[in-house]
């Protein structure tokens, strides 16, 4: 029963929205009724879908790049304190600097001819940190007893990494991946806003364009697609998480 509550709330909100907009004569360019948004979605669908695929492509590429880069750097950090000491402050600087502020610079450097490259780099910077910090934490959260066993049996560094550290890091790594995927989408959208020009073809740029032309229903339609994309990404990673961790969720803590 409670499963359907969000759906019910959604229907009620849409109904109230539709009726009040019509009854109060709210201008369409301020708040279009849901029916109009649906219509805009329908008529602009091919164009919006292209834009969505472009945004999704960049999001997934940024996510993959941050996952690979963050994990590789975390492995390096766990191997060598010296490297961690030397590089971590810069990773933090990158993390705390607002992406909007560095965007123009990146656009000038790489994005003049290839906006999508600038978007990719910016989104990767945003999505990178949760992977790095969660993977570092996970790689260190090895059961000390298991670490002793690996020493007793004279495991090589490579065996320890593949058979002990990476599996131990999996829950933290996947939690980081979930955050990172969301940030990759946010990063892509923000980067498209900032870096976008006539060349940009992503969904975010459709929103800017629609706003400029006061095509507010189309803007809402694009917004709706973005939300659904975020939800789908989140659900996909939750599914992967469930599959990979189903054997040890309960056994993760104390013996039960």
């Amino acid at each position, binding site marked *: 029963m409670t499963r359907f509550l969000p759906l019910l709330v959604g229907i009620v909100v849409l109904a109230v929205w539709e009726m009040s907009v019509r009854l109060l004569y709210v201008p369409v360019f301020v708040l279009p009724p849901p029916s109009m948004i649906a219509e805009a979605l329908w008529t602009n669908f091919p164009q919006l879908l292209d834009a969505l695929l472009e945004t999704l492509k960049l999001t997934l590429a940024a996510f993959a790049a941050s996952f690979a880069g963050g994990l590789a750097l975390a492995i390096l950090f766990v191997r060598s304190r010296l490297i961690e000491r030397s590089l971590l402050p810069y990773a933090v600087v990158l993390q705390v600097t607002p992406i909007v502020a560095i965007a123009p610079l990146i656009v000038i450097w790489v994005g003049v001819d290839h906006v999508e490259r600038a978007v990719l780099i910016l989104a990767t910077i945003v999505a990178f940190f949760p992977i790095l910090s969660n993977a570092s934490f996970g790689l260190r959260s090895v*059961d000390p*007893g*298991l670490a*002793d*066993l*690996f*020493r*007793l*049996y*004279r*495991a090589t560094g490579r*065996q320890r990494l593949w*058979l*002990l550290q990476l*599996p131990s890091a*999996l829950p933290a790594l996947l939690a980081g991946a979930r955050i990172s995927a969301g940030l990759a989408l946010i990063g892509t959208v923000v980067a498209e806003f900032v870096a976008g020009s006539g060349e940009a073809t992503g969904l975010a740029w459709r929103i800017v364009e629609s706003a400029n032309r006061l095509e507010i229903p189309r803007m809402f339609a694009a917004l709706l697609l973005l939300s659904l994309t975020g939800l789908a990404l989140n659900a996909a990673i939750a599914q992967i998480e469930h599959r990979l961790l189903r*054997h*040890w*969720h*309960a*056994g*993760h803590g104390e*013996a*039960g």
Partner: protein
Amino acid sequence: MLTLAGIGKSYPNGLVALDKVSLDIEAGSFTSIVGPSGCGKSTLLRMIAGLDGPSAGSIQGRPDGEIGLVFQDATLMPWADVTANVYLPLRLAGVSRLDAAPRIAEALALVGLSDFAGAYPRALSGGMRMRVAIARALVTRPRLLLMDEPFAALDEITRNKLNDDLLRLWREQGFTTIFVTHSVFESVYLSTDIAVMTPRPGRVLARHRILGPAARDAGFRASAAYLDGCRAVSHDLERAMAAAV
């Protein structure tokens, strides 16, 4: 014979964990190290395993080949099933899965877990997890098995059953066992030799030899050898505690 000669362990903060511990452990014996918490018995075991280095003294006569090690916690890999957990020592030694299969099956049969080869640790009870840990320790056919309070966290019925199983394995396989415990009764029931240790700093206070049949069962708990052993070891443990205060 495994010889510990004048083993000392002190830490930079001045704590002396072990002080001049000398101990001969006969090949094929079942030796228990009994003492209150803080007497450094686990540290001693880690040194025998080679996981910790002594600050003074030396350890001689470690057997060739692998050493088996079992902790108080089963310490299984939660992401791997029983077979993969038992395979670990062989895998780390570079034995292929195919070559390891019969030895894994044998080790699982020894601890009575043949039917659970594909189970994951979280689906097993505490006692079964401990059996997996024992199978993993035995899969390399070690000449020396080190156990650090392996059954302390289990209920008494399970503990008694595992005690009997361990004795059977020890008799059949002929490995030397060094068993750390704080339970007098458990040590007397299992051991041929017992060393009682004092806490802070850890020293060997007394040694006992438990006579009695190699094949022991519940009847042994009523025998004179068992009762005398318990009395003598308890007495020394009290002395060890008194010495610490």
